[in-house]
């Protein structure tokens, strides 16, 4: 008996279906399990950027170009940007730091005045835009080393020259523990892993650097569902909103929740209630993008203080944030942009959930990584999104009283002046306000007008604003005779250290009028003020030897000797007298601001 013969076409289709079944089985066998990733941990469901890349190549590529990605990296030839071969030493306060590559690793060696040398292996890097800081690991603790690389000036610096601390501050002042603080904002979903009983750490993060999870939250379920092409096309065709896709998309959240995602790091905060610090330091950061940030944290304001009988090391903690704000409560440091924006009228006058938010202007996947702004958003187009009454040149000039193409008609310059300091640069405030020159008189806060009109006094600016915008400034009153001084000169010498530094930054590059003042500013007791003054001078005469703002006074003076003859002696004498006279007026209370 012969076996039954199948019709050939049927047999062919049968074999085809069998082959397809085998293919399906193979795909199923190697399918990843995203749904249970990191289960049981604080960062459950958080994926790494490499996982997101498999579907979101475009967004991965744009993120990859950002400084967010390189905020924290494992140390290696690709991540280390400092000069470890040629200009690889810095001597500060008698301690010689030498940065070397040995045995395939990067090292920082410190030789003290006693001749003893300490060596620290660099295991991680922090930052890649303005300065790069270096971490070493001892036991279970990562520590920030006191020497960093200035990526803008291409030189090694001591961190006393980066923060607002005066000369004479201890060499190790800024040796900070990464596990305690930096870990929260420079990575995704920090878990310090502090054991409060024996004070040991088991610090972990979902991903080093500020990666996809920092803004999009846990995406394990999303990725699991998205393994099916049917689901993906259903999402694409229905344009389903983010919750249906089981992942947070800041663009599809209400504006306030969207701002909180950025505010989580760009808005320094303290745990709410304060006792939350304990699970935060042990289990991890409780916030996930999309949640209400204020359920877990209170964004720090000027009046806030931290008082605790037991810090992470069992120490008593007592700390005020007042010096990080101008007297009216407006932030004067970076990483407080959330506080700035949320106190501005652009925010408070809007409807909750449908008002200005960070991504009204910034784009995380477009534009210049330096500021995350598209070219369009660097112009008045940003403000005209809402303030359409200033669209035409005529409307603009009627509003600004400055020529339409001038810097005086760029919205940012008047409404977001550079009165904020951060990482060796002056930044625009995010407290979007109308210029208030009388605040310089009343509060000692820099005003937008004098940021450009450095040679005008505050009183002259107040008079001009009353004349040009009589309704807006009718209640604005001038100050006493101290405010008859040119404001650039007054704030460079009489302001507090932050004000002096910002004024020196505003004077960059120096002019013949400001250079003698800046030469005097090189005598300031705060290295960071001298940093801006030296940059302003070098911007004017790049061919001359640049004064080293971190060098001892006698070394700086020797360099400055080559600068003095460039300006008439009477101008320099007047600048010196102004410094001595105005410095005597200022409060000498130290401003100590870490970031």
């Amino acid at each position: 008996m012969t076996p039954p013969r199948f019709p050939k076409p049927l047999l062919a289709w049968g074999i085809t279906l069998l082959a397809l079944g085998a293919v399906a089985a193979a795909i199923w066998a190697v399918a990843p399990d995203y749904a249970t990733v990191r289960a049981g941990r604080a960062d459950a469901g958080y994926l790494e950027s490499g996982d997101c890349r498999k579907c979101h190549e475009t967004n991965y590529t744009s993120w990859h170009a950002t400084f967010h990605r390189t905020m924290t990296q494992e140390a290696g030839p690709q991540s280390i940007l400092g000069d470890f071969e040629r200009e690889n030493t810095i001597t500060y306060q008698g301690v010689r730091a030498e940065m070397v590559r040995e045995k395939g690793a990067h090292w920082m060696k410190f030789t003290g005045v006693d001749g003893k040398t300490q060596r620290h292996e660099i295991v991680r890097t922090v930052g890649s835009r303005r300065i790069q800081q270096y971490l070493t690991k001892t036991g279970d603790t990562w520590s920030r080393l006191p020497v960093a690389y200035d990526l803008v000036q291409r030189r090694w610096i001591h961190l006393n020259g980066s923060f607002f601390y005066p000369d004479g501050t201890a060499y190790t002042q800024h040796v900070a523990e990464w596990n305690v603080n930096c870990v929260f904002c420079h990575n995704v979903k920090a878990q310090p892993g502090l054991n409060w009983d024996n004070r040991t750490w088991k610090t972990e993060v979902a991903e080093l650097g500020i990666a996809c999870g920092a803004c999009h939250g846990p995406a394990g379920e999303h990725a699991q569902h998205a393994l099916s092409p049917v689901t993906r096309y259903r999402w694409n065709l229905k344009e389903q909103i983010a919750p249906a896709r089981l992942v947070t998309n800041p663009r599809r959240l209400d504006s306030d929740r969207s701002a909180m995602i950025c505010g989580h790091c760009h808005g320094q905060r303290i745990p709410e209630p304060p006792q939350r610090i304990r699970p935060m330091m042990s289990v991890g950061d409780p916030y996930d993008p999309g949640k209400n940030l204020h359920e877990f944290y209170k964004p720090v304001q000027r009046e806030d203080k931290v008082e605790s009988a037991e810090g992470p090391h069992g120490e008593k903690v007592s700390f005020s944030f007042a010096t990080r704000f101008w007297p009216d409560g407006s932030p004067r440091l970076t990483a407080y942009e959330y506080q700035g924006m949320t106190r501005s009228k652009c925010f408070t006058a809007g409807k909750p959930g449908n008002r200005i938010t960070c991504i009204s202007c910034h784009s995380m996947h477009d534009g210049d990584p330096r500021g995350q702004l598209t070219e369009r958003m660097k112009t008045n187009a940003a403000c005209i999104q809402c303030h359409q009454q200033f669209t035409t040149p005529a409307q603009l000039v009627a509003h600004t009283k400055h020529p339409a193409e001038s810097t005086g008609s760029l919205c940012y310059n008047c409404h977001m002046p550079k009165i904020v300091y951060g990482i060796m640069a002056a930044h625009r405030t995010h407290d979007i306000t109308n210029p208030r020159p009388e605040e310089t008189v009343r509060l000692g806060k820099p005003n937008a007008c004098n940021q450009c009109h450095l040679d005008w006094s505050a009183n002259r600016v107040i008079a001009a604003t009353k004349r040009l915008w009589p309704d807006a400034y009718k209640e604005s009153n001038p100050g006493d005779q101290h405010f008859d001084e040119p404001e650039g000169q007054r704030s460079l010498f009489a302001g507090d250290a932050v004000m002096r530094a910002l004024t020196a930054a505003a004077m960059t590059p120096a002019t013949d009028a400001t250079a003698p003042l800046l030469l005097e500013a090189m005598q300031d007791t705060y290295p960071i003020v001298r940093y801006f003054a030296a940059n302003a001078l070098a911007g004017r005469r790049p061919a001359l030897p640049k004064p080293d703002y971190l060098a001892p006074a006698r070394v700086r003076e020797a360099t400055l000797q080559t600068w003095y003859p460039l300006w008439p002696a009477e101008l320099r004498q007047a600048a010196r007298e102004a410094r001595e006279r105005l410095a005597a007026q200022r409060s000498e209370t130290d401003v100590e601001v870490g970031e």
Partner: protein
Amino acid sequence: MPSPSHPGAGLIRQGWISLALWIAFGILIEGFSAFRSPAYLDDAVRREMFRLAHAHGTLLNLVLLGAAICAHLNLIRLGPMTSLGLRSAVLLLPAGFLFGGLWHFKDEPGLAIVLVPLGAVLLLATAVYISLTLPRR
């Protein structure tokens, strides 16, 4: 040369015409690369889809021509249905890539990509059928 009534004749006509079109398309995407066209180079999905369309379009039409020659030499049996299956698959597969790249979602090919698995299954079934019906020697 097969007569116009020969089952391979249609395949040869389609093969050469399509081959010419896909070669022209290849020149087009080479031009996009050479002249740095952002519409092509800055669009990762489109770039990948167009490359796949070009590769599949040229290669599968060579297969089509090969099948026609094999049929002419009586090395394979090419009935009307087999011929239709083969010709359809050779059209559908690269067309899916082409149109899936032309109009697409942000990080996903457009809906036309559904033509690709259809064409692939058809191609597989046709290949299996041809191998099952090879003339005995």
